[in-house]
């Protein structure tokens, strides 16, 4: 698990920023009149579309896959969840951005947990 403060804070800022952006885009795009399933699909696609260039933006600062994958996951989940919420009830921009940032951070936690689990399964050389 990454313990260097530069990367811990940098990764968190990258996923929170991308999650907030994806949440904002999803809530602007999706209205209460939308059916939930198409809203989730569109939100997920928009989140991923925004996360891809964002990940290339953060890569020079914070590394390659270690920032790309959490940013992609966070953007995808944020777009999906915020779009689903926006299809159910009115959602303000600040609330969407805040929730999006939280979902982005949850994506980072999920990636960190998955990495730790895989390393516990086998951090040694395996054939």
């Amino acid at each position: 698990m990454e313990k260097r403060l530069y990367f811990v804070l940098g990764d968190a800022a990258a996923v929170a920023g991308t999650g907030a952006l994806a949440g904002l885009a999803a809530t602007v795009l999706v209205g209460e009149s939308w059916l939930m399933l198409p809203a989730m699909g569109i939100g997920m696609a928009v989140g991923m579309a925004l996360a891809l260039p964002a990940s290339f933006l953060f890569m020079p600062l914070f590394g390659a896959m270690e920032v790309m994958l959490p940013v992609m996951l966070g953007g995808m989940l944020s777009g999906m969840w915020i779009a689903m919420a926006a299809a159910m009830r009115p959602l303000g921009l600040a609330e969407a951005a805040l929730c999006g940032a939280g979902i982005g951070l949850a994506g980072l936690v999920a990636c960190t947990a998955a990495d730790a689990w895989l390393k516990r399964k086998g951090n040694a050389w395996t054939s």
Partner: protein
Amino acid sequence: MDLVTKRKWDSAAATFDLMGGYGPEKRWGPRKREFFSHMRGRVLFLAVGTGLDIPFFPPERDIVGIDISAGMLEKARPRAAAYGDTLELRELDVHDLDYPDHSFDQVYTSCTFCSVPDPVRGLERLRRALKPGGELRMFEHTRSRYFPFNLMLNLMTPLSRRVGPEMNRDTVANVSRAGFERVEVRSVYLDVVKQIRAVAPAAA
């Protein structure tokens, strides 16, 4: 020589250090220092690029660093000069490797086989360049077996392929397909960034 690939990396040379020179090297620095610490004998380092990995090499090893791109090598020269006389740089495509069979004790690659156009043929050429029992050591990002990472890497690949690497290569399987033995893997990050080591068969 594969001129399409050569032109792609010549174009990328100008901004390569900007994209990969700080964050990725700072993140992977300690892992790479350990990875390269096992260099021994005559070593072929494939795709030396702009030489970002050279500062992590242990001192005074007998290394030949090759790359398909003259633009990349031009940027690598100051780093190679700082390393010393035992590191030689050559412009060479792995598919056209012109060293006699069994020339090297070890082959190292670092984030290379995401970009080699014909990875199995390239790896076969490396196997022949290794002495029987010689070692291949790779630090590579590969496809993932797990959802949603496999989906994300598949979606990124059509875009990333245009500027450089493919994100979903099954490099571990390619090493076996190329005839290497005792293929072993160690995870660096998730199921994506990996160290791979394998051995050229004794009868190769």
